[in-house]
């Protein structure tokens, strides 16, 4: 029987307002993933996804939050990452998640790349509420 860390079921909110917060968010995400028993490889995927999502917040909205929490599905454990901002929203969601698309001169890997490395990917975006991306990664 695995001993439960008291903080495994907590929810962590990392405010993201500058590029330095991207590093903080991904370190917190990796730490939670490791506490949940993710392998180093899986934890790296989680950290990489957080990095991309946090950068989107800084780049397009200026500031927002990365919320991290654990989840279960029967005996399976997973990690949920919510990236939310109150920025201008994404005008063409279909285009934004298409591979190779970028408005910022980046590689265009941001959202499509994140979608590839997680198990579940949801995005809600509009002009009033900004953008919320919710991703889930299950432990193998």
């Amino acid at each position, binding site marked *: 029987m695995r001993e439960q860390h008291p903080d495994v079921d907590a929810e962590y909110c990392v405010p993201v307002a500058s*590029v*330095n917060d*991207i*590093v903080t968010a*991904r*370190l917190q995400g*990796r730490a939670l993933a490791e506490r949940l028993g993710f392998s*180093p*490889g899986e*934890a*790296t*995927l989680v*950290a*990489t996804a957080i*990095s*991309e999502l946090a*950068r989107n917040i800084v780049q397009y909205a200026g500031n927002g939050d990365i919320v991290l929490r654990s989840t279960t599905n029967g005996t399976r454990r997973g990690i949920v990452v919510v990236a939310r901002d109150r920025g201008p929203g994404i005008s063409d969601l279909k285009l934004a998640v298409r*591979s190779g698309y970028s408005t910022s001169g*980046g*590689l265009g*890997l*941001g959202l*499509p*790349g*994140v979608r*590839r*490395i997680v198990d579940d990917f949801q995005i809600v975006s509009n002009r009033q509420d900004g953008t919320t991306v919710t991703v889930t990664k299950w432990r193998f």
Partner: protein
Amino acid sequence: MAVPILKQSQYLIATIQSALSDEDLLVLQAALVEKVGKFRSRGVIVDVTALDVLDSFASRTLRDIAHIIRLRGAETVIVGVQPEVAFAMVQLGITLEKVSTALDLEEGLAYLDQKLQHARAAP
């Protein structure tokens, strides 16, 4: 956090020590471009062994560094990409196209030595 850059004969060796912010990466880029000229270096090694994530921005910056350094007349080799990091990069769709990589510092130095020898031998 600043990345120390060591000058070793005709090479520059930048060893990344911890997670880097976007700004740190751009500072590294500027410092390497400047030092290649100052020390008339022929090769640059960027050691990323300590990096736990190479996301799209970091990868693009490393690629830019390699291309800029090449325009300055020197070769760059990225060494120490960790197995999990390499796996995540491929999953994310990142390629370091036209950027030389090597397993570790030793292999990186051997690569540069060989590359420069070839350059000298060419007619």
